[in-house]
């Protein structure tokens, strides 16, 4: 028995070393490189960087507000009413989650561009064209696109929080004479704090550090894009490191501020009793309203992607409402570009390896904290969840810093020679939290007695794991793996920063390069994007079917 404990602790130690090396060390490296006071002062002195920082903050705030309004409305609808198609609504919410805004931005320009769909309609109605995407328009476009991408994160957290509110609490308020609005503002909304904190902090940090969307829109006056652009001359100018440090500090500040604002202990009063669903059944035409709202939001969020599909299949879509002349030429063009096919192969290799690493590490972390209960498991749990709070850009930069600072790091993964391990580990580290969450929720829903029974009937620890535990949480393992895989396939920040040679480009970087080719570029990039989306949709649909509503648990922090 002692021998087994030793093995368990050894495994924990290995995991801890892995996380320290590939999560904490990169972080440490960035901070080490960027914590140059002169440079930090310069960041705040230079108007361009100051403006970038303020713009990023503004994007984050506006995006989060948009997200809060959208997701609160939808979550309340979902919780309050019974309506046809309700069971598919949460699945519908996954759609924007999986369609990366990076790709959608291409399509968005098709809709709101000066010669795009909306403006054509405006002109046909006898109105003058509006330059939506010029000047201030870019800012709002970035916010809207990111909000439409991120609202499911908050929505899923709110749904869970709402599900934990005992209807008896609002009943008690009603019993004491509180009106509907009072019940909402005095009881339900305060009880939702924990959900807001969990989802809101992810959305804030995510939108604050999002690189792909502003890059695609050419909205360059934001910190992440400035960091990315500074990459080229990193050798002579280490300023991007300082920018990253500032970004990290602001992210941490945002999180702490939100925590302070919403209160960490909020929601702990939500006692789970025996409760049935209190959803109200809607009658006649009204029952179509909620599902209509869901469809409308979902449609809005996939509109850019629909436009992308239109662009991909048409020869011409310029100054008309609908695309003209069906064609497959764009797909041919895309495939004939020397970047495309290798990038698909690259992405598959990186992501498959990343998935394996993430699943192994994540499962181990989940087992350690919710089964083996080793000493110090809480620290490991915290460590493995940390990537959710650290912007991808920061970790990517950390890896870059590591390859230049440490000889051993340069030997294992040189981004110039072969970034396979570099990218796979970078992808994996940031996907570990999803695996941990998926597996932990599986373990928590599986009574430990089932495993104890197996031990009781003579099965050793390994046989118990393979014969009982893994089959029982198979769906969760699969979902964790699928998430790790598909998020890696369309990962942006690591891919753009760490893949430096064109033969090693993953899909996203190839997509960016392709879209910047003048002329046919955007069309073939669209075709390429369609392929990537279809692929992702397929993997995630299967995940959704496997796990149903529980999928929300994966995004909780």
């Amino acid at each position, binding site marked *: 028995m002692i021998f*087994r404990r030793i093995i368990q602790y050894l495994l924990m130690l290995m995991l801890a070393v892995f996380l320290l090396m590939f999560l904490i060390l990169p972080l440490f490296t960035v901070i080490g490189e960027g914590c140059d006071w002169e440079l930090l002062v310069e960041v705040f002195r230079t108007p361009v960087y100051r403006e970038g920082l303020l713009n990023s903050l503004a994007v984050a705030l506006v995006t989060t507000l948009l997200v809060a309004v959208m997701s609160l409305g939808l979550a309340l609808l979902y919780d309050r009413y019974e309506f046809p198609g309700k069971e598919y609504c949460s699945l519908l919410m996954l759609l924007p989650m999986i369609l990366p805004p990076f790709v959608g931005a291409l399509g968005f320009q098709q809709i709101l561009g000066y010669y795009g769909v909306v403006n054509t309609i405006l002109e046909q109605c006898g109105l003058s064209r509006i330059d939506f995407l010029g000047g201030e328009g870019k800012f709002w476009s970035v916010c809207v696109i990111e909000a439409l991408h991120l609202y499911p994160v908050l929505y899923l957290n709110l749904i869970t929080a709402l599900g934990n509110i005992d209807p008896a609490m609002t009943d008690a308020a009603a019993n004491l004479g509180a009106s509907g609005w009072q019940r909402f503002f005095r009881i339900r909304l305060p009880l939702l704090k924990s959900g807001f904190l969990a989802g809101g902090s992810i959305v804030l940090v995510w939108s604050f550090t999002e690189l792909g969307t502003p890059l695609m829109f050419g909205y360059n006056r934001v910190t992440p894009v400035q960091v990315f652009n500074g990459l080229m001359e990193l050798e002579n100018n280490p300023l991007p490191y300082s920018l990253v440090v500032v970004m990290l500090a602001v992210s941490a500040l945002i999180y702490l501020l939100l925590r302070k604002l919403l209160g960490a202990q909020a929601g702990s009063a939500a006692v789970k009793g025996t409760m049935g669903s209190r959803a109200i059944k809607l009658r006649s035409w009204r029952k179509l309203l909620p599902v209509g709202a869901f469809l409308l939001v979902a449609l809005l969020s996939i509109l850019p992607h629909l436009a992308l599909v239109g662009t991909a299949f048409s020869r011409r879509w310029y100054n008309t409402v609908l695309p003209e002349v069906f064609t497959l030429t764009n797909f041919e063009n895309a495939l004939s570009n020397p970047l495309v096919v290798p990038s698909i192969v690259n992405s598959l290799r990186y992501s498959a390896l990343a998935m394996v690493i993430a699943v192994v590490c994540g499962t181990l972390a989940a087992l350690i904290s919710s089964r083996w209960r080793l000493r110090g498991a809480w620290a490991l749990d915290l460590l493995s969840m940390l990537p959710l709070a650290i912007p991808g850009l920061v970790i990517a930069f950390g890896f870059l810093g590591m390859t230049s600072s440490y000889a051993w790091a340069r030997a294992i993964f040189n981004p110039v020679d072969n970034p396979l391990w570099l990218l796979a580990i970078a992808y994996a580290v940031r996907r570990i939290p999803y695996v941990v969450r998926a597996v932990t929720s599986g373990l928590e829903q599986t009574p430990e*007695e*089932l495993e*104890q029974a197996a031990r*009781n*009937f*003579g099965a050793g620890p390994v046989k118990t794991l393979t014969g*009982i535990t893994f*089959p029982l949480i198979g769906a969760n393992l699969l979902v964790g793996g699928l998430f790790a895989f598909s998020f890696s396939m369309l990962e942006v920040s690591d891919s753009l920063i760490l893949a430096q040679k064109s033969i090693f480009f993953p899909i996203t970087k190839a997509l960016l390069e392709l879209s910047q080719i003048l002329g046919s570029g955007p069309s073939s990039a669209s075709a390429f994007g369609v392929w990537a989306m279809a692929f992702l949709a397929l993997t995630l649909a299967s995940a959704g079917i496997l796990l149903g509503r529980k999928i929300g648990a994966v995004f909780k922090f």
Partner: protein
Amino acid sequence: MASVFIDKICKSFVSGRPVLQELSLEVNHGELFFLLGPSGCGKSTLLRILAGLEKQDSGSIKFDGVEISSLPPEKRQAAMMFQNYALWPHLSVFENIAFGLRIMGISGKKLKMEVQSALDAVQLSDCADRRVPLLSGGQQQRVALARALAVRPAVLLLDEPLSNLDARLRDTMRGEIVRICRERSQTAIYVTHDRQEALSMADRMAVLKDGRISQQGTPRELYERPANCFCGAFLGDINFIDGRIANGRLETSFGSFILSGECDGASAGAIRPERIKFAAPDHPEAFAAELVDGTFFGDCSQWVCRAGDTLLTVKESAPGERKIGEKVFLAFDDGFLLAMR
């Protein structure tokens, strides 16, 4: 089958709050032994320690004289029937029962035979291919029993196995478990908080309180000769009668009575309600009382009588008709008024 020897087991989950305190116990070969106690008394913890699912802080456990304290759960041959059954939902009934047998290396025809005989024993012969979630509560409970029996364990551990069943099914299963254990002369340790279950099924039993054994013995010994107030009250209704104890007699406000049991250090007398009888006024031991209250149960009535300044509960089977407030005469059955510490 094996005998079980438990020696000075200590266990605490939070330091300073012991769950088991130097608990020692011996269970003989082939015995159906009951651990009875209120919730939180440590009885399930003891069972889990026997199965190896918890580790004791100190003390030793021997099966048939062999020390097993340091063995992992899978080496102990102490098959347990879990309170919530713990049937594996991803395996069929057959596979659930075959699990332990396969690990023992049994396969093919032998495996089928063993599983079938376990299923026969619990009278579920035609359920082998069913899936666990589709079974009723009673069927799941029997599958769990079959699974534990199939491996022919040295010791069978049952953790409140009948607590989730309805009253009728519980009665049937009580009989079944006793029958199976007797037939196989299976050493079994059965944990429950249901005194009826313990009294009706046990060969021997122990009452646990705060992690210690309060008393052990046969059901009749424990019921009729409880060693202390706790055991007396836990196993059934009992009247405690205050008075002065001298020369083996209890002097009360309504008479003087012979006590049985050890009188040294005793502080009160105790008698079960069914051992107080309505008597004729000329009965030599009779004392007068006033009928204060009554509840009619059909096969019996429970009366409350005031004798002197003491309220006594009296259980009368085949009850006669009586009026509240009337004067009655009562007598204690010979030898059932116990001296209580």
